[in-house]
């Protein structure tokens, strides 16, 4: 065997491998089976969580196999790639023979196929065959697009055919899968997915991305003017609404309300209502209570302020606010996080937590003063998902094509019909069969139904 023949054999085999339906069944089932992993193992969570959950032995194995971000793992992408190649090669491989069926050079019926069909229906009639021929030919001609009549040795054959083009439906379905893959790829290459919390009155010019620690510049400034919630009588949330402005420099160029299911799309950027939270507004009152005398001192403060404590006992720094503080494993709700710096500055600074719902909480600390915070006015911040995905139009076109393609493939058939008329002892024997490219139980019913119609035609003629 010389080299080029061997090479041809090799490429042939590779081609056959990638064109085979067996490969696609294997790949489809592998995709289904491996997809389960990512629904059982939470994806993209904290490594410490995984280590705790799966232990020292399983964790490194799972990690090496990319189980913690498996839908982006190389092996999952390989399966998707294999499916794509499979679809392309398979379609090319078959297109030419399908094309010949759809646009045949010469229409060629094999009567044997119909004579042998298990679906065929036969009956006899007293009407002469040429009379039947006219009635049947006009009926079939009305219901089938192509019609041919052939003479045989002892009678004639009427062939009808329709729906050849529906053979292209499957190609549309497979093409749409390619569109979904391409659209998804474009989205992951040229799109981004970010998330930002914006307090009322605040604005952002860039958004932190979800999958890495980068920030993405926006082509405009986004300001949250107001956030509001409304409730049903039962207390269930009815609507979350962010009123936002798009600014160019200082100038407002667009204003909009964003609600769940009603995003803002602006300059190719999509902004979605995603979450919200409460934050304390600028000022509140700090109450220092002397545990011995019961004396109370009030001071106004805001986040970040440094407050001189009464009797020169040191400085209190209001550092931060949290929506849920965990105290010995219990969530004690919204709390301010503070730092106390003693006056002499020699001792260490200490951290103090002041929960909003428990004004007497700080007494437990047993300090010079019990500290609590009141008269807090709250504002909201809105959590907005900010994305750009230039692949979406392609994906949506894929969605439309797959729907139409599946409908054509499943419910519209390439149908052929054959009626054979033979004269025998002054009677006409009729044989009728419908076949389709794919054998469907529908063909049996279709044949019977057509037989009924043809027989009715004949009865009407008799009358």
């Amino acid at each position, binding site marked *: 065997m010389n080299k080029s023949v061997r090479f041809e054999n090799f490429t042939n085999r590779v081609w056959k491998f990638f064109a085979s339906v067996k490969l696609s069944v294997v790949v489809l089932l592998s995709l289904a089976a491996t997809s389960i992993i*990512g629904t059982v193992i939470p994806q993209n969570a904290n490594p410490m969580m995984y280590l705790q959950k799966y232990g020292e032995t399983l964790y490194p194995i799972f990690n090496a196999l990319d189980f913690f971000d498996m839908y982006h793992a190389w092996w999952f992408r390989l399966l998707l790639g294999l499916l794509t190649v499979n679809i392309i090669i398979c379609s090319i491989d078959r297109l030419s023979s399908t094309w010949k069926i759809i646009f045949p050079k010469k229409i060629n019926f094999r009567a044997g196929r119909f004579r042998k069909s298990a679906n065929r229906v036969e009956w006899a009639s007293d009407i002469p065959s040429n009379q039947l021929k006219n009635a049947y030919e006009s009926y079939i001609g009305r219901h089938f697009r192509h019609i041919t009549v052939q003479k045989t040795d002892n009678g004639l054959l009427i062939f009808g055919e329709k729906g050849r083009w529906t053979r292209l439906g499957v190609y549309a379905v497979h093409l749409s899968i390619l569109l979904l893959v391409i659209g998804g790829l474009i989205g992951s290459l040229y799109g981004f997915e970010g998330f930002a919390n914006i307090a009322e009155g605040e604005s952002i010019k860039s958004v932190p991305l979800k999958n890495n620690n980068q920030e993405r510049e926006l082509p405009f400034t986004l300001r949250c003017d107001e956030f509001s919630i409304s409730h049903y009588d039962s207390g269930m949330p009815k*609507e979350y609404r962010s009123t936002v402005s798009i600014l160019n420099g200082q100038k407002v160029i667009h204003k909009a309300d964003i609600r*769940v*299911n009603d995003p803002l799309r602006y300059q190719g950027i999509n902004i979605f209502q995603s979450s919200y939270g409460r934050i304390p507004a600028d000022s509140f009152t700090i109450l220092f209570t002397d545990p011995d005398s019961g004396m109370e001192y009030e001071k106004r403060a805001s986040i970040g302020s440094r407050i001189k404590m009464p009797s020169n006992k040191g400085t209190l720094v209001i550092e931060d606010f949290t929506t849920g503080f965990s105290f010995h494993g219990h969530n004690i709700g919204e709390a301010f996080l503070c730092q106390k710096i003693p006056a002499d500055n020699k001792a260490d600074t200490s951290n103090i937590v002041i929960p909003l719902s428990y004004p007497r909480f700080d007494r437990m600390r047993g300090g010079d003063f019990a500290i609590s915070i009141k008269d807090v006015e709250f504002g909201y911040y809105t959590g907005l998902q900010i994305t750009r*995905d230039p692949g979406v139009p392609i994906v*949506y076109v894929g969605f439309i094509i797959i729907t139409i393609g599946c409908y054509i493939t*499943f419910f519209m058939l390439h149908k052929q019909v054959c009626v054979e008329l033979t004269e025998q002892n002054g009677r006409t024997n009729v044989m009728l069969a419908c076949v389709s490219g794919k*054998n*469907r139980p529908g063909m049996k019913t279709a044949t019977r139904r057509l037989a009924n119609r043809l027989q009715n035609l004949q009865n009407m003629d008799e009358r």
Partner: protein
Amino acid sequence: MITSSILLSIITFVYGLAALLYICAWVFKKELPGRLATATTVIAASGNFIGIILRWIESYQQGIGHAPLSNLYESLVFFAFCIAVLYLFLEFRYKLRVIGVVATPLAFLAMAYTSLRVDSTIEPLIPALQSNWLIAHVITCFVGYAGFAVAFGISILYFIKSSRGGLNGGFTSKIPHVDMLDELTHQMVMFGFLFLSVGIITGAVWANQAWGRYWGWDPKETWSLITWLIYASLLHARLMRGWTGKKIAVLSFAGFVAVIFTYFGVNLLPGLHSYQ
């Protein structure tokens, strides 16, 4: 005035009765119980439909009007209705009552589960569910699931029939030939596949409206994709030589297990979808 939940509880028993009648007709090979079974199923499906409409009206009377397709209870009721209607269509088209033996119990089970385990109060729609895509999504998904449920039922018949080597006698004589069952499974799977595809698509469009991404590998989404992939492989497996009958029935079984898991099991896993 009869409320929708009372009516639907009654309908549960009507489905149960229909199932019993189909079984009687099958076991005793009699025509009368078969006719009664068909009539009972028609009554059950009509009552089921009226119940859905009634619930719709009730939600408006409570001032929180929305299509009754928004939680587990409502979707199960709709699921039962789809199974019944699809089955009745098959019965009239192919004149086969034996499929009723497996189809009506499925409708009954769906309804019985709502009475036992699921809260039936009408709730207002939370913001995430306030979308017309929700209606399109739920309807197409459940019509598709109904197709798969009936395919699953036919696969059970396939196993019963083929376990006796296709012998004609006893209970199996009323079951159509395995080739016919195989092809009916295929038809139901094609029907289900088209609707599941549209269901996944409408879900993706909805997710893109509500959350800003059309696909996020959320467990519910992933399981619907798994279901879709299993049925896609079933459709292709038929094209391979040697992959008929039993193997197709096994895939149809596996597919329906995935449907059930997508529906119930996923709630055990973390994710955005609270029901369906």
